[in-house]
């Protein structure tokens, strides 16, 4: 569907911990301007896969390609500096710090020189507000407001907006909608669409097939560390996807079991 080279590509990746195989010959590619949904039950290997993509783990075998060139991320920091940003469900924002201070944490803008070098709070607040407004958060009007006063969805937007502002080309979103209500999730899904239109490649990890179907361009289902299915938007029904996620026929069996209980 897209002839651009992948921004990030994994080829035949395996990861073994001790004697356990967490990932077995997994290949996938993240294209610019596409949302790749990574689906799978708990323990299917999603977390390990994210960690390989974001530099926490080195693959046991297989290769990682960044914009067509084989590469190796020496650390999460290395991956981040090269444009691979991971936003986790909970961690990432600090409730008792202001919006502006959170946004620029670790990359604070300063003015003045030498001993008089100081935080440029005005600029930090202004940019932080601009960035979250761009993604539809207009309720927050004061950059000094504490992040703890924002809703879960707003915090996700802040974290994702932050990653994009600092030049992310691949966004790895780990369950960004799972703790959110319907309206909140919609805000985050809308943001993902906007990021896609700006050419960012997105890896969307989720349990929620409905959310995945709403924004996904391509889908990969992991079961026991293997790619059980890989398909494009419209190729499969929601039901098929749900069944795949739960590990094949188990879902319908589960439903039958539940009916039997009633």
């Amino acid at each position: 569907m897209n002839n651009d080279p992948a921004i990030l590509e994994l080829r035949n990746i395996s990861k073994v911990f001790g004697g356990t195989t967490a990932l077995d010959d997994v290949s996938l590619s993240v294209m610019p301007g596409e949302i790749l949904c990574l689906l799978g039950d708990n323990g299917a290997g999603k977390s390990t896969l994210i960690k390989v993509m974001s530099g926490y783990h080195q693959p046991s075998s297989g290769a990682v390609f960044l914009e067509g060139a084989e590469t190796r991320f020496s650390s999460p920091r290395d991956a981040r500096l090269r444009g691979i940003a991971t936003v986790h469900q909970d961690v990432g924002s600090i409730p008792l710090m202001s919006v502006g201070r959170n946004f620029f944490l670790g990359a604070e803008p300063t003015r003045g020189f030498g001993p008089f070098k100081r935080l440029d709070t005005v600029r930090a607040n202004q940019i932080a507000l601009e960035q979250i407004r761009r993604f539809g958060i207009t309720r927050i009007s004061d950059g000094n407001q504490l992040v703890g006063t924002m809703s879960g969805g707003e915090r996700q937007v802040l974290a994702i907006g932050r990653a994009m502002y600092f030049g992310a080309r691949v966004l790895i979103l780990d369950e960004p909608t799972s703790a959110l209500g319907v309206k909140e999730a919609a805000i985050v899904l809308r943001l993902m669409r906007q990021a896609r239109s700006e050419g960012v490649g997105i890896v969307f990890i989720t349990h929620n097939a409905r959310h995945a179907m709403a924004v996904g361009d391509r889908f990969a289902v992991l079961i026991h560390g293997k790619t059980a299915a890989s398909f494009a938007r419209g190729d499969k029904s929601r039901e098929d996807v749900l069944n795949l996620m739960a590990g094949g026929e188990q879902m319908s069996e589960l439903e039958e079991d539940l009916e039997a209980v009633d």
Partner: protein
Amino acid sequence: MKNLLRRPEFGAFAAFALTYVFFAFVTHGAGFVSINGAAGWLNLAAELGIVAIPVGLLMIAGEFDLSIGSTVGAASMVVAIGTKFYGYPIWPMIGLALVLGAAIGLTNGLVVVKTNLPSFIVTLATNFIVIGATMGISRLIANITSSSIVTTDSARMVFAARWGQANISILWWVIAALLGAWVLGRTAFGNWIFATGGNLQAARGAGVPVERVKISLFVATGIAAAFVGILQGVQWNSGNATYGQGYVFQAPIVAVIGGVLLGGGYGSVTGIFLGTALFGVISTGIFYTGWNTDWIQLFLGGLLAAAVLANNYVRRFALTSR
């Protein structure tokens, strides 16, 4: 008004104002509100305040330092034995005492960061180790655990000058507070302090060098404690291994009264400053009332309990949406 209530130092300010007015009223005419009366509580607050500011910053970063007490005494003994027993000039001994303070802080910091043990326990152990070592080594060298100090005019000018009843320590306290407020509120390092105490994982994830933040602050508390040891030594013309033991818990207490959260991540230097001032007002105010000074402890305990409750409330209030 609502924004004022959300500030961490609000409670300390209200308590300070109320307590001050209370004592001014109760001690009517006894001189508590006079210039000398003010110098009295400011002197008392100042020395504690110089240590309490870095201790408070460290608490905002999520760690405790209970070793400050012994560092005060050790620094005073370095100066005392150096000048009196060995007859060295005082300034190099002052330098040595400050280096010792920094070294104790560095050790605390490295141990806490490398072992991930709670700093409460690590620095409590350091507190015993340092006072024990100070006494033991002083005995070995000079067979004493306290000694007079040979000072010079220049040292007295820097550490023991007085204007009327007011000690120069008040000026040092104000300088420490201004420096602390600048670092915490206006620098990137200050941002890292909040982040380190507020959410360690997130701070690390954002590239904040959390280990360096903690170690730097431990070094700062060590230097501040040594500075106070020198200040007291020169002021009283003597060093003593037991100087400063009162600060072990007073410093964290005034930080908490000033609105610093015990768990870290929230607080302000203005608050710590006001908490310390409040401590000074209570300690000297009771004296002016003519009541038994035994009541001081009761007051402080009550205040601490109230402060912890209030901080909890303030934090929750700060996190409600507007």
